[in-house]
């Protein structure tokens, strides 16, 4: 399977703390994306990092990519209760027709 894996599966933190989620994947990629899913809703794109990039920032989000280890991390700084959601990484492979394969997700709970 080309599906990636996130860890931890679930993470519970206090508001104001930082949350770090990790993603591992199996194949060579063009880019890696992170999406967020609120309960009962569709996924919303957060940030994309290309295979030739090592770090990217967007607001309170910081993404790193290590292609040698086939892994990525998503850091959410100064978390808020509204950040409570599931977070998924998705990889677009170098071969194939721009297909996007999703990981298993990390369920983040931010306690007010």
């Amino acid at each position, binding site marked *: 399977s080309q599906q990636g894996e996130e860890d931890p599966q679930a993470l519970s933190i206090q508001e104001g703390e930082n949350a770090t989620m990790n993603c591992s994947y199996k194949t060579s990629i063009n880019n890696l*994306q992170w999406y967020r899913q609120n309960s*009962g809703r569709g996924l919303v*794109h957060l940030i994309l990092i290309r295979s030739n990039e090592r770090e990217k920032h967007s607001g309170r989000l910081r993404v790193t990519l290590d292609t040698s280890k086939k892994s990525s991390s998503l850091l959410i700084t100064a978390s808020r209760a509204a950040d409570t959601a599931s977070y998924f990484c*998705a990889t*677009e492979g170098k071969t*194939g*027709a721009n297909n*996007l*394969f999703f990981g298993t*997700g990390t369920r983040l709970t931010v306690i007010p």
Partner: protein
Amino acid sequence: GAGVSQSPSNKVTEKGKDVELRCDPISGHTALYWYRQSLGQGLEFLIYFQGNSAPDKSGLPSDRFSAERTGGSVSTLTIQRTQQEDSAVYLCASRRSGANVLTFGAGSRLTVL
């Protein structure tokens, strides 16, 4: 429309019945994806349409599953002779040409009794 629209939002059916799930992508988006998400799980790729090219059906779990995209716009996912293990949320997403990012619909929750 402004977003990806899926219908029905909820569908309860009896084992053995056929169901059709509809996806209306964002106007002008050339690529359309179907994923399945079982309770508390990640997204399982089902099928991918890109323009007029032959669809990538490699993710369809069995021959009971099929999908079509008419006129390069609306797509219908059909599940024949539904089984209880088909119960899941079916998510549709679309992407415009040249873009990397997917826009998702809210999903269709299927429950097979």
